[in-house]
């Protein structure tokens, strides 16, 4: 047997495609799938949340107990509760209990937590003096309850966490971040959700107090916020202030709400 050596010209054992191209193709493909799954599950969450019994929501609310454990129990907090109780009589769902907690914190913010709990930080109370203005904030948070925005946010956060844990692993940094935001106080809502809550608040205020002066005053502060920058915290978790102001002004004009005068 004669052996004649020959050079091998092409390597058949390796793929001659660019690995970088492969990498980006795979990455973007998987990313697209995750986004689609997240979107579909998000829609399912909206459907499920609308049917979630109040008892379940109250059970969920206990998870967030740490946020209002150290709530103040002084005259100011009782005054807040009084304002809320007055607003709640006009709440569409009957037999729901709402509690407002005043928590010592520099943050200029108020948060709606599952289970009908509203947390107002003392930072916000310092900025907002008039009762009507704080009523508007409370009514706005009630609007989130009426639309179940906080539960939608929670459900989506949970989906994000599950997806991240599934794809990237439980001890991944992205998963940890998703887990943190799940428990985070500052749940972000979309512009549409904020606007809907604003409109709900306007209607509720007009019904209960016969005036939306508080909303006008509060929005006046929003307009002046560039100069002061004091309410910036509130808008970091309640975005799109300019558009909201405009929508509120349009709505007041359209429905002919009373912007002056005292309470009923």
């Amino acid at each position, binding site marked *: *047997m004669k*052996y004649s*050596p*020959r*050079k*091998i010209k092409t*390597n058949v*054992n*390796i*793929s001659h*495609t660019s*690995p*970088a191209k*492969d*990498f980006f193709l*795979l*990455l973007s*493909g*998987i990313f697209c799938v995750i986004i689609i799954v997240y979107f579909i599950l998000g829609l399912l969450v909206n459907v499920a949340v609308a049917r979630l019994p109040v008892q379940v929501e109250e059970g969920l609310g206990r998870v967030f107990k740490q946020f209002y454990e150290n709530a103040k129990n002084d005259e100011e907090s009782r005054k807040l509760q009084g304002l809320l109780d007055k607003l709640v009589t006009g709440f569409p769902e009957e037999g729901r209990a709402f509690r407002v907690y005043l928590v010592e914190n520099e943050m200029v913010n108020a948060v709606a937590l599952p289970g009908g709990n509203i947390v107002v930080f003392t930072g916000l109370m310092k900025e907002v003096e008039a009762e009507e203005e704080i009523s508007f904030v409370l009514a706005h948070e009630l609007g989130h309850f009426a639309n179940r925005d906080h539960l939608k946010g929670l459900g989506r956060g949970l989906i994000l966490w599950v997806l991240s844990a599934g*794809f990237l*692993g439980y001890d991944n*940094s*992205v998963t940890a*971040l998703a887990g943190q935001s799940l428990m985070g106080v500052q749940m972000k809502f979309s512009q549409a959700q904020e606007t809907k809550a604003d409109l709900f608040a306007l209607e509720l205020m007009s019904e209960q107090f016969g005036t939306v002066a508080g909303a006008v005053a509060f929005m006046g502060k929003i307009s002046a916020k560039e100069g002061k920058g004091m309410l910036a915290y509130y808008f970091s978790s309640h975005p799109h202030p300019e558009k909201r102001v405009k929508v509120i002004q349009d709505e007041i004009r359209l429905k002919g709400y009373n912007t002056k005068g005292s309470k009923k």
Partner: protein
Amino acid sequence: MDQLIFLIILVGVGYTAGTIAEKRHYKSIEKRENKFLKLSVVTLKDAFDKESPILRTRLVQGSAVISIDYFKRILAGLRNIVGGEVKSYETLVDRARREATLRMKEMAWDADIILNLRIETSAIGNSANRKKTIGSIEAIAYGTAITYKK
């Protein structure tokens, strides 16, 4: 976030360093393969010239360990999700086998033919066969070298 940046840096370093190392390795492999082109290696056991008197026969072997880089590992991880050919590992295995065969030839430098070539591959290192760690691949090539009397 900082962990994500760290990951991107690792992937970038893995890609650049891995590509450079691979190119250089292939260059060296081809050069040495040409050098040993005359020394035939076969998988048959009795493909030698039975008429020629044999000076000596001996076992020759060569082994090589090649490590995977971070970019290849991530790419293979992504591939694990959707399935299909793991192309990023192909060059790794190819390089290890050819390098091992070359080293075996280098050991049998004075031989006329190497019979009964066998190549085996295994994962190696602390992290072999463990998830989320960088592994290496070892290839060992061995055969029987025959040198004729001149």
